[in-house]
């Protein structure tokens, strides 16, 4: 029978099928961080259970770590306890752990691929919704809660019901000079909505996806969760294999050849069935930016802020629920209908997060920043590399100097202002040009107003002090 990529990975991991339609699914890889794991370790200990396979785990501290003066340790006492608890749990259980003074430390979803821990055809979990990032490698990867972390610790399995298959096929090629995979995923989410993928695993396919680098693919899968999907997937290909070859935790020698033979079988068969299929064209996609309080509330940078009263449902009738939520969003964002998006003043700029803090992201932002200065009206512009290794590579290329000379702050790796658990956050009313993934109310600090965009667009906003179509600056 013809199978989708998702069907193939799922079938290869079913340990047992229960009568009620659920399955016991085997989990190959588990990433652990400080915020969602302590209660799982505690639960395990209280029940006197042991970790089933410690070698399946890679741990690091990222959500809650300071990005400044790290050599002085962690000031915030609660954060300190949380990070120390993770270190202690890893030590007790002999887990591989990159602590805050290890240069391999970074955001879980950056370091998994970077280390070659993320591999095609695996099942992978983490107590973080953006685990979908690893789907870019053809790994079935999804976020789980703390109870399920404990279950994977104890049993290496989860009881799950299979999701539906969705495919988003993208023809054409993204335009050169100013358009990135971030614009593509923001475009997709604006089209299908933040619950458009609920109950589904989305496979991204088609020529436009094939042409993307691994880093660009990761930004797309990363935000699958912002469309509500359980996971995002892209079939592995030569681009994937080239990226993984030689990474510290990737197989080598004979095992590499064996693995590659298997990985090449991981694609959706021609006649495979998708519950839902969406076809898009990449050629006309332009830089995107959000104006509202969830990732679907956005559009091309040339657009104006919409008028809630003009929002209709598919039948052409007023969509009252959506109208109310857009009206609330505009009030929160301090924007009025009809205002052009270009020109919205920016108070802070954040280049970072598991969506866009890899070396290619930093290079592209630096290409705009080079020889220019951050606008005087911008209170703070941050660059937070995704890992110590990304930071090191950027410094070897002199990117740090480009950013610092322009007036950016060059920080230590972590989640930082994407979720603002640490000291990096917005003040009430401030507008932020951000390369992260969520623009929810209060996400980057209470009362903060987030505009999601690509690293190129965020760099352009930093220089001009307002939202601008980056293509005007290239």
């Amino acid at each position, binding site marked *: 029978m013809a199978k989708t990529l998702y069907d193939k990975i799922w079938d290869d991991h079913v340990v047992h099928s229960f009568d009620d339609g659920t399955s016991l699914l085997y989990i190959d890889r588990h990433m652990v961080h400080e915020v969602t794991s302590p209660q799982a370790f505690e639960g395990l200990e209280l029940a006197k259970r042991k970790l089933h396979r410690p070698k399946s785990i890679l741990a690091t501290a990222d959500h809650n770590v300071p990005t400044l003066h790290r050599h002085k340790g962690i000031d915030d006492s609660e954060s300190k306890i949380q990070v120390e608890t993770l270190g202690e749990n890893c030590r007790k259980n002999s887990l591989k752990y990159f602590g805050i003074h290890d240069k391999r430390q970074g955001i879980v979803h950056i370091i998994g691929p970077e280390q070659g821990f993320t591999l095609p055809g695996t099942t992978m979990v983490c107590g973080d*919704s953006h685990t979908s990032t690893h789907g870019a490698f053809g790994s079935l990867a999804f976020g789980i809660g703390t109870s399920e972390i404990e279950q994977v610790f104890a049993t290496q399995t989860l009881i799950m019901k299979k999701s539906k298959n969705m495919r988003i096929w993208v023809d054409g090629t993204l335009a050169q000079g100013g358009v990135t995979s971030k614009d593509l995923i923001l475009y997709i989410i604006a089209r299908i909505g933040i619950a458009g993928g609920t109950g589904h695993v989305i496979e991204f396919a088609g020529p436009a996806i094939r042409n993307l680098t691994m880093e660009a693919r990761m930004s797309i899968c990363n935000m699958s969760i912002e469309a509500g999907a359980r996971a995002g997937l892209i079939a592995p290909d030569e681009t994937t294999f080239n990226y993984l070859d030689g990474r510290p935790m990737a197989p080598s020698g004979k095992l590499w050849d064996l693995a590659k033979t298997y990985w090449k079988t991981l694609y959706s068969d021609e006649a495979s069935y998708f519950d839902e299929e969406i076809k898009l064209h990449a050629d006309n996609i332009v830089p995107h930016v959000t104006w509202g309080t969830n990732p679907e509330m956005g559009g091309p940078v040339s657009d104006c802020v919409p008028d809630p009263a003009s929002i209709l449902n598919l039948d052409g009738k007023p969509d009252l629920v959506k109208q109310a939520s857009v009206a609330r969003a505009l009030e929160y964002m301090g924007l009025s209908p009809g205002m052009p998006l270009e020109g919205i003043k920016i108070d802070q700029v954040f280049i970072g997060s598991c969506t866009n803090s890899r070396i290619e992201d930093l290079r592209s932002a630096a290409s705009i920043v080079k020889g220019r200065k951050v606008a005087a009206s911008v209170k703070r512009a941050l660059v937070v590399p995704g890992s110590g290794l990304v930071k090191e590579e950027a410094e070897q290329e002199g990117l740090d100097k480009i950013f610092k000379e322009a007036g950016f702050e060059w920080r230590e790796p972590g989640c930082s202002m994407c979720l603002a658990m640490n000291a990096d956050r917005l003040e009430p009313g401030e507008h932020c040009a951000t390369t992260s993934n*969520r623009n929810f109310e209060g996400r980057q600090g209470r009362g903060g107003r987030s505009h999601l965009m690509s690293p190129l667009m965020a760099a352009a906003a930093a220089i001009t002090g307002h939202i601008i179509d980056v293509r005007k600056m290239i």
Partner: protein
Amino acid sequence: MEKFTTLTGQIAYLKLSNIDTDMIIPKQYLKTIKRTGLGKFLFAEMRYDQTGEVINDFILNQQPNTKILLAGENFGCGSSREHAPWALLDFGIKAIIAPGFADIFYNNCFKNGILPIKLSQAAIQTLILYSTLTINLGEQSVKGKEHTFYFAIDEHRKTVLLNGLDDIEKVLEYKSTIAAFEKKHFEKCPWLIGGKK
């Protein structure tokens, strides 16, 4: 986990779609290493102003005894933080009724004895006319004085809640099945055994 069979209690309606987990429990309260004590931070930025003063007209401040929450589409979207159901439970909310839920949040509820119920927008508009509702999981029903609505739920999830089961205990009974799977799996994919140099 506590069993969930029936629940009668006060309702509150949050007339909002896409209530995300950042709204349910803002990140500054995720620094705890415990599961308990999060109820006072539930919907913190809607319940308290910038100075920490209680916002009196927010519904959960008016009705601190709420047991059943009704809301709009796509409840619980966003992060995977289980602190969201922990905060709801600690506040006293044991059931949520909405037209739809985000997958991870939905799943997390069942791990904590909270029942998320999917009902149509129209049913919800009727149910909010009551101040108290009764939920019967066995019957899969939600009752107001004059109305009864029936909801769908996966058999597995229903059994887990009705009996207060612990998934881990259930799965540990399959220990030898898991071991047999691992043997076969690692023979097919030997590069996954250590996974690391």
